[in-house]
């Protein structure tokens, strides 16, 4: 075999595609296949395209671009696959290979660089984004924008999201977040809280509630100062080096805390954190530290289910359904605890959606960069959500939270259906309020 093809095979993790026996068991669970209805957008199809490159039948990687661009990275296919094909790894390697060869137009290149390298990893800038959101609301600009109809004309369909972004937190309050919150009862664990970048910027309130819930449940909670973005968005965009850098920074920051667990409340970030071990497996200096970090990573629902949330007040006959975060289901494999927690609230009626495992189409920034595709997937999701007749939809990831809110808005259900993060709902039932609620 000529050396370039050999190199390409290694770059694309061709050997991992050999495990795929083309049985098609992954087709029915793949949201892009079931929505767009083409083998080109199925896991089996995508894996085959990589095989074709490895076998020298396709030489131009741009043939792979659209199929891999439109993959949500939800990894439902991995969970369905009987032979254990590591689709996630193949996806990341292929995207990275495509990105390496691609010449983005200047504005796109600058935007990618600015967002991925500067904004997400920077606490300052993400805070600033959070502040501007707050300012934007308080200044009356929001109302003006909504009235003027300008929102609809924003680029990337950002107008669609305008209506659903949460109420922001004031800069003063954001600055006042404590770095150490003590357990409210006998201490079970010391946990370090992973704040996340988008989570902290847009859902600061949920982070505060999370910390309070953890303290109520018997945890000393540390908010480690030097933590940064988890790197998921970078890895999914094919910027692997950047993702590894961020991972190292986080590992370093959290090691210092000596906590029993690193707890997060964002399914997508959590999935990245449990994969640091894989991400740095080739790096001799970091391999073990990364594996140890991943072993300590937990979703908040796991800790709360184990420690027990105290005194949940009965809800008056609320019908609740749960939109699972794909990454929590398929990567972290956390599926039982959130449902247990929801069901532990007295008086609620829990209704599981049909095709509960199907992605909602949010997938990082997929819903922004592939707006139309994402909305098609969301529409399928909303059909199932509506069938449950639920008055509350629970999610466990910021992206899913926004997406489901958008879905509810699109269906004209915002008057009758609330979309909440699990933490918000538990806090509500436990009578906990964040200071910004007062």
């Amino acid at each position, binding site marked *: 075999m000529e050396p370039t093809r050999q190199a390409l095979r290694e770059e694309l993790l061709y050997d991992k595609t050999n495990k795929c*026996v083309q*049985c098609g068991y992954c087709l*029915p669970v793949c949201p892009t296949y079931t929505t767009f209805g083409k083998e*080109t957008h199925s896991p089996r199809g995508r894996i*085959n395209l990589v095989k074709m490159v490895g076998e020298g039948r396709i030489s131009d990687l741009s043939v792979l671009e659209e199929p891999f661009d439109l993959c949500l990275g939800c990894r439902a296919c991995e969970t369905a696959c009987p032979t254990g094909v590591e689709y996630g790894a193949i996806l990341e390697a292929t995207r990275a290979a495509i990105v390496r060869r691609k010449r983005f137009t200047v504005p796109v290149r600058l935007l990618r660089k600015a967002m991925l390298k500067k904004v997400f990893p920077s606490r300052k800038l993400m805070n600033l984004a959070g502040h501007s959101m707050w300012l934007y609301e308080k200044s009356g600009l929001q109302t003006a924008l909504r009235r003027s109809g300008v929102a609809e004309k924003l680029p990337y369909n950002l107008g669609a999201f305008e209506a659903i972004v949460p109420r922001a937190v004031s800069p003063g309050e954001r600055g006042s977040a404590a770095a150490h919150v003590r357990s409210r009862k006998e201490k079970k664990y010391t946990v370090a809280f992973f704040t996340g970048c988008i989570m902290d910027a847009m859902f600061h309130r949920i982070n505060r509630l999370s910390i309070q819930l953890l303290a109520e449940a018997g945890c000393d909670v540390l908010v480690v100062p030097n933590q940064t973005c988890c790197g998921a968005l970078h890895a999914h965009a094919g910027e692997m080096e950047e993702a590894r850098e961020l991972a190292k920074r986080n590992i370093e920051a959290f090691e210092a805390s000596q906590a029993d667990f690193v707890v997060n409340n964002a399914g997508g970030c959590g999935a990245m954190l449990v994969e640091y071990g894989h991400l740095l497996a080739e790096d001799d200096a970091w391999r073990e530290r990364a594996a140890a970090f991943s072993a300590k990573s937990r979703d908040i629902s796991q800790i709360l289910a184990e420690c027990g949330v105290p005194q949940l007040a009965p809800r008056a006959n609320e019908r609740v359904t749960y939109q699972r975060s794909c990454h929590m289901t398929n990567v972290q494999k956390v599926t039982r605890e959130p449902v247990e927690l929801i069901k532990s609230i007295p008086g609620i009626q829990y209704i599981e959606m049909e095709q509960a495992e199907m992605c909602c189409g949010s997938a990082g920034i997929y819903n922004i960069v592939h707006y139309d595709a994402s909305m098609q997937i969301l529409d399928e999701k909303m059909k199932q959500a509506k069938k449950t007749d639920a008055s509350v939809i629970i999610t466990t990831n910021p992206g899913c939270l926004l997406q489901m809110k958008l879905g509810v808005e699109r269906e004209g259900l915002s008057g009758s259906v609330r979309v909440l993060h699990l933490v918000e709902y538990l806090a509500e039932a436990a009578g906990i309020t964040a200071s910004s609620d007062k």
Partner: protein
Amino acid sequence: MNWKALTADHLTEIKSIVATGRVLTDESDRYSYSFDGSFGTFLPDVVIQTKSVQELAALVKLANREKIPVYPRGQSTSLSGGPLPVKGGMVFDLSVMNDVLEIHEEDLVAVVSPGVLTAEIHKAAEQKGLMYPPDPSSSHVSTIGGNLAENSGGPRGLKYGVTKDYVIGLEVITPEGEIIQTGGRTVKNVTGYDLTKLIVGSEGTLGIITKAVLRLIPKPQQTATLMAIFDSLVDAGSAISKILSSGILPSKMELLDQASMTAVEQYEPLGLPVDAAALILIELDGHPLALREEAQQAAELSRAVGAREVRIAKDKKEEAELWRARKLVSPAIVRIKPTKISEDATVPRSKIPEMCERLQAIRERYGIHLVVFGHAGDGNLHPNIICDKSDPDEMRRVEQAVAEIFKAAVELGGTLSGEHGIGTMKAPFMEMELGACGLDMMKRIKQAWDPNQIMNPGKIFPEPGQKLELS
């Protein structure tokens, strides 16, 4: 045969015919329709998706006039190369025709369009207390159209037969682009030749199925499951024959040999007896009172021929646990080596022990990793060869071993395929089973139906000198 390549003019005409669907020509799309669950990659010139029978018929007319090959395709889970576009041309993705799924309780029939997934038919029938018995392991991915074309079977084939036993009527586009009806909605129908049965199992070489009427039966009230463990493969084979000749008709009877058990245990420890030579899993269905007795009887019969242990499931949960072993065989064995050649040579039930011995001899002679499992109750063993397609030397030994397996099956009075079809993979062996005249009669039927040989060419019938090639 001289098939024609697709030209730009053809494409323009195709696009003018397909008003309601999609015409795919991008390289990424064409490659995505170039494979199935078996071997080989063949690039189609164009892939067409449409729900309209009229549009499809018009496309077939065009293909027939211009001598362009046409390949019907369901979800491409075929293990024999059935939907591969081996001569280029047009692939019709019929999985998009999934709109019709009617259950007519009073007639005990289901009317379906070809793209409906088989598992959806199971679900819909069960909701009405009925059952559609054919249950290929791939039923949650494969289409009924693909099942009909391959005449698919499954574990329940032992008691209930295969797909052809449940089809009473079809709508078909002929290779000349005409739309015809065969059979109907009555269980009894003896008008003329039975074209329905001819189309079922024809692997897409005689036409495109666009609608089917399926027979349903009342759903059995309950099931019972037992697992019998043996120290010799031959004893396990005898137990199967003994039980079947005792008047009990299990709904499923599945065999796992030692290699399969070991693979499963390494994959996910279930507490299988890896020191034993084989186990059989038996499922009975029917009235609860009868079931209890039959399960006892089957257990005693197994012990009498040397089973060292028999486990009877006490409830649904234990049933599922016992069946888990069978479910995990396929995923477990591909962890050993990446390439899996799944054969489905079938022998008369009485010859199961002898076939098992022959397979053991083949395994040793060619030094290959061969595991045996499958629907032993109906003689449909699945000898699976686990190998690595990047090792040409090993693949050559595998090719020889496969040929020997077919030879053994045919010599024992069996057949090349119990359910997976012939496709491209088994075509070279057809004459061995059918004889030259037998095969020629089939060819004449094909010639009469499809004078221009445009419908799924390269399947079933070997080309002169065609050999099995895996490397």
